[in-house]
Structure formats: C-alpha cells, structure tokens
C-alpha cells in the first residue's frame, strides 16, 4: 500500500487566521457542533477554531481547487493535543452527500486500508479520512518525539456519531452496474470528467473483466437531446484527436473512437445519459448490453 499524504498545512505564524469570506453563524455553529467532546477523545483543543469557505486557498493552497469544485460550503479546522501527539481535524461541509463522496473518492485509492467509519473511511499510520452525509472529515496525527502514532479511530467515531446515523452511499452511485466492479473505484466528477467540461457531471468506475481494466463513465445531461449533443461532441473530439466511427456491432447507435489520450473507447447515449467505456473489454457488446439494461432499470437513481 502506498503511503497516504498528509492532509493539512498548519499556520506557521502561530496566529489564528481569519476568513475574508463571511461564513454564516448557523453554518459555523453546525460545524462546531460536529467537533468531538475533548474528554471523550482523550484530547484537548490546542488552537482556536478556524473556518474557511471560498478562501480555502489560504489554508491548503492549490489543493483547495478540488474542494471548491465540489461546491464547498465551509470547513472547520481544529487542532488537538494528546499526551503523545498533536492531532489536526478538518471537517468539510460539501452541501450534499454526492459532493462529499466526490472529493472523498478523488483522494482515495482502491489499495488503501478501508474502515467501517461513516459511510466509508480509510487510514494509514498518521491519517484517517472518512465521509458521511454531506461531510468529509480528515484527521492527521503528528507524534511527539519518541511516541508512536495515536489511534485516530475513537476521535473519528465521535465525529461520526455527531453527524448522525445515516450511513449509506449516495443514491446516484446505483447507476453503476455491480458486476465486475472494482471495489472502491467509483468516482463522481462534476467538473471536466476526462478533461472535458461538456461531460459534466459524471459518475465513473473501473471494471475488471477477464483481468483487464475498463473504465465506465456515465455522464448525465438534462434531457435526451443534451445526451445526444454530448455524443456529438465526443465524436468531434475523437475526430480531431484520433479516429472515430460508428460501432453498431457494439451497441445500437454507438461509436468507436481512439486517440493517444484515452486509447480505445466506445460511447453512446441512452436517454439522458451519455455512456463512455474506455478500454472496452474483448466482448464489449456483452458488457455494454448489461450497462444498457441496468440504466433501464427503474430502481436506478438518476439524481446527479
């Protein structure tokens, strides 16, 4: 497993920073209410609470773009101190569960050590991240000299309890067929999926079929005409960057494309969805028929 990266940058001037952006008092109160009771976590606050919203750059530099791209409402930062370590807690309010999942999933890898925390979480020696509801919580520990890494799980559990009892994945993820799905590979992107604005928003995941990876991306338009327009834009893009042509043998009304950026792809529209399969499996028709059947299932949520 690869080491996880630290999730925070500390203010180095020792002073609390202030937001240039007004954060409503009720939002601040709501976020403050998610902080664990110090005694329960065996930790005491070691800094003033800080709040950020669109000025998140001031706290995490360029990493802020990703959070702002998922419509960050606000975040709260609080440092704690235990006997053995300093702990940093950041709770991001993304406004809705799908956005919280989006930024959480952007930072996770299927190879991480996952935990049943919140809806889902993962940890390494010094980091624990999880998401639940509209919140994404990131905990980082910094051991004091000669001390081992502290257990962040109790603190995370305390936060999770304050968020609530609802711990289900966003309904929109049900749009992904489960067969052959690589666990923890799902993503939600609301900005430039595959590097293209016109595909926003999209849900994607990796599938392992006969040991080979294929990426399935499902882009949601407001109506069928919008989905068809995205197909036209994909045709235009592959025409300019590589090749494209009809692929009715794969799926009715579908297209095959290829270029040096995505490789081989198959794409088509179905209702309000534009479906793109990167590196399609040897028998793409079978796989994509399953996708089409799945999309036609009335149980599948279209709420993204």
């Amino acid at each position, binding site marked *: 497993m690869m*080491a996880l990266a630290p999730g925070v940058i500390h203010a180095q001037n020792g002073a609390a920073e*202030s*937001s240039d952006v007004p954060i409503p008092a009720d939002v601040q109160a709501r976020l403050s209410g998610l902080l664990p009771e110090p005694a329960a976590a065996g930790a005491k606050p070691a800094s003033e609470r800080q709040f950020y919203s669109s000025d998140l750059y001031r706290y995490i530099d*360029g990493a802020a*773009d990703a959070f702002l791209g998922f419509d960050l409402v606000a975040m709260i930062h609080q440092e704690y101190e235990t006997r053995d370590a300093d702990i940093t807690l950041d709770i991001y309010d993304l406004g809705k569960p799908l956005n919280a999942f989006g930024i959480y999933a952007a930072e996770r890898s299927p190879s991480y050590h996952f935990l049943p925390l919140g809806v889902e979480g993962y940890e390494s020696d010094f980091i624990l991240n999880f998401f639940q509801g509209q919140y994404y919580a990131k905990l980082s520990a910094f051991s004091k000299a000669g001390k081992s890494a502290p257990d962040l799980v109790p603190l995370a559990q305390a936060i999770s309890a304050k968020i609530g009892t609802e711990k289900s994945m966003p309904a929109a993820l049900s749009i992904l067929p489960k067969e052959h799905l690589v666990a923890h590979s799902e993503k939600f992107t609301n900005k430039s999926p595959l590097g293209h604005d016109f595909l926003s928003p999209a849900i994607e995941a990796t599938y392992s079929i006969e*040991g080979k*990876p294929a990426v399935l991306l499902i882009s949601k338009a407001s109506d069928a005409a919008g989905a068809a327009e995205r197909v036209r834009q994909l045709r235009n893009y592959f025409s300019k960057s590589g*090749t494209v042509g009809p692929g009715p043998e794969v799926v009715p009304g579908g297209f095959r494309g290829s*270029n040096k950026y995505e490789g081989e792809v198959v794409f088509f529209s179905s209702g309000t969805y534009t479906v793109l399969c990167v590196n399609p499996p040897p028998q793409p028709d079978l796989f994509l028929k399953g996708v089409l059947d799945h999309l036609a299932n009335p149980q599948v949520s279209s709420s993204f």
Partner: protein
Amino acid sequence: MSGRDGDLTRREFMTKPLTYLASASLLGLGGEGLLMAVDSASAPKLIMRPLGKTGISLPIVSMGVMNAEAPGVIVRAWEAGMRYFDTAPIYLGGRSEEMIGQVIRQLGVRDKAVIATKATVRGTGRRDPAETKADTLASLDASLVRLQMDHVEVFLLHEVNSVRSVADAGVQDAMIQLKKQGKIRWAGVSTHQNQADVLNAAASGGPWDVVLVGFNYTMSDNQAMIDAMKVCVSKGIGIVAMKTQAGGSNPSRKEVLGSGVTDSVRQSAVLKWVLQHPFVTTAIPGVTKFEHIDDDIAVASNLAFTDDERSFLSNNAIKASLEFCQQCGQCVATCPSRVDIPTLMRSHMYAFQYQNLEHARFTLAGVPKGSGLDVCKSCTSCCARCSHTVNIARKIEALRTIHRV
C-alpha cells in the same frame, strides 16, 4: 462512412497510448506498456528561460498538476511541450503524485521530465531541527514511493511563510543530504504569505536553488515582492510562478476577474502579464482539462498581448472589481467618523491579498487613535462609499477579525 468524423477506413487508426488506463493501472490491474512516448515534434516553438543556476532551461509555461484527474491531460501537456510538472503530497491526498508518476513512467520520458514536489513540515523554525530534518526526509521518501521514482528534480519546502522557516537548520540539512544522496537535484521553498521576506531570506543563503512564489496581476503594485524576486535571480535562484491566474479558474473568482470576457482571453491575459516579467522562469497554472493546455501553450509561444487581452487588462471596471484601493482618499469624506480608510484598505491588502498578517497589523497599529478601527466600532454599519466600487464595509469587517486576534 462519412469522412467528417474521420472514419476508420480512410484514416490511420491510431492505437497509441491508452493513457486513461494509467489510472486503472494504479489499481493494480495492469496497464503496463500501454503507453508509448508521444512525438512532440509538431509542438509549437516555445519560449525557453533558464532556471536560475541549475543549468536547465524550461518552457515558460509548465503544468500545475494539482487537481488534474485525467491522465490524458498530462499526456497532452507533454506532447504540447510542457516539461516541468508541479505536484505535492497534499494534492488529491497524494493521488496527484501517483498519477503524474504513473504517466511519466508509462510515457518513458523520465529522463526528460522535471518533477517538482513538496514537503509540508510542521513547526519549521520552532521545533528541534532533528525533528524537522527527519520530517523532511520522510516526506520525500513517501513522495518517491507515490511517484514511483528514485529522485525528483525539485524538492520544495511547502507553505513557507516566515524567515525562520527558511532558516530552519533541520530542513536545510535534509536538503543538503538529499542532494548528496541524489534523491533531489535542487532544493527550494514555496511561499504564499510574507513572500518578500521569504524570498529575501532564501536569497541570503542556504541550499536554495528554486523558489515557487504566488505572483499575478493583482500584485502589480507589490514592489517589495518584485524586488525580492529580482534579488533571488541575481543570486542564481530560479523563479517559478504560481497563482498566476489570480484565481481565475476558480468559479468564485470569475466574477471578480470580469464577466463578458471569454475564459481564454481572461486566462491568457493574466498569464502573459506574469510572464512578461523576464525574471520569472516558468509559470505553473493549474491544468485540469484539455482546453487549459491549448490556452497555456498559445501563451508560451507568443507573449504579445492581443487587442482583447490588452482591453481586458486595461478595463477599469475589472480593475475596480478586483477592488484595488487607489488610495485617492475620497471615501474619507463619506465616513461620518472620518476614519483613515485608505490606510485600512492598505492593511486589508497586506492581510488578504499579500497574506502578510504581520505587516497588516503593523500598518493598523500605525493608524492614530480616533481614526482607525476603534471608531468603526461606534457604527452598526459602514456608511463609507468608494467611487471605484471597493467594498469598504466588507473589507473593514474582515479587518476587524484580524484585529481581534
């Protein structure tokens, strides 16, 4: 078949890289050998500048990998001629490093790419140097694992906001050791706050070869920082500019940077403004989509402003929307308490634009009693008005928050 869409029988079927699968191969599902080196012979001729005393020259536009999630975008950047790729452990929780490492490896261009990553080290200048040294070394080792590389070209101490951080003996020892070990070629600092002081400190001595500094159109009157960059260059330290788009890629800043202007004009105008300062070696605008690369590369081969760009940069309404206080003093007459608003606005600029809280507080402290924030407290809401549309009330409210700290 219609030729319009490039039918498969009439055009060469390109079976080059399956770049998107770079992300899939991160899943341990294979993907090895899927990518081939991209021929960049057709790329436009890019303006090159030396990176301090490192001995290398770089195209003036590079790639801030930060939040790029589509590996194909990196391949396109390479193909277009970008060679310097800036990442950090904090970007996408380490996924940014993993992805750039995977793509560079699969492109087979490791020997030609310049990879820059960073270390966030707590308490520099305050903690035991042995600890900051250990943290610096550990951070690089973790980055190298994620990058799947045995070295990086540029290794930066991240978020350096004070002189004492630049002078941290532990970090400096670590940088020297890493150079000797061949794990890094050049050391540097990245800074967002108190930038002039940080740059001057880096220029005064230490293992520093590169500085990564926030520099954009909104800082045109920050002469102290511009002078500090020139000092760095005179000492052989290369300047890499970030924040060049003034937040223009951030939707919340787009309104500020001007509506009614195309994204391309906005992006290229502010980027050219930065690069027209010859002491800047290269800029690293964040790239998350293909369009960004096309826009950035167009700048990298021609820094002359177009009429639209010139118009954008000279648009007083845009300048006003950037909320530059012109220090004209006309607002004072609109304030019932005759508060020294121009000085307060300067304090705000130091605090929130230059992010130098220390200087902001120093400036605030210089305002005589009876004409500063103390009298603002007697008003429930600000009545002062700016003829250039600076939102005085909002800035004063923000200043109050730092004043309380």
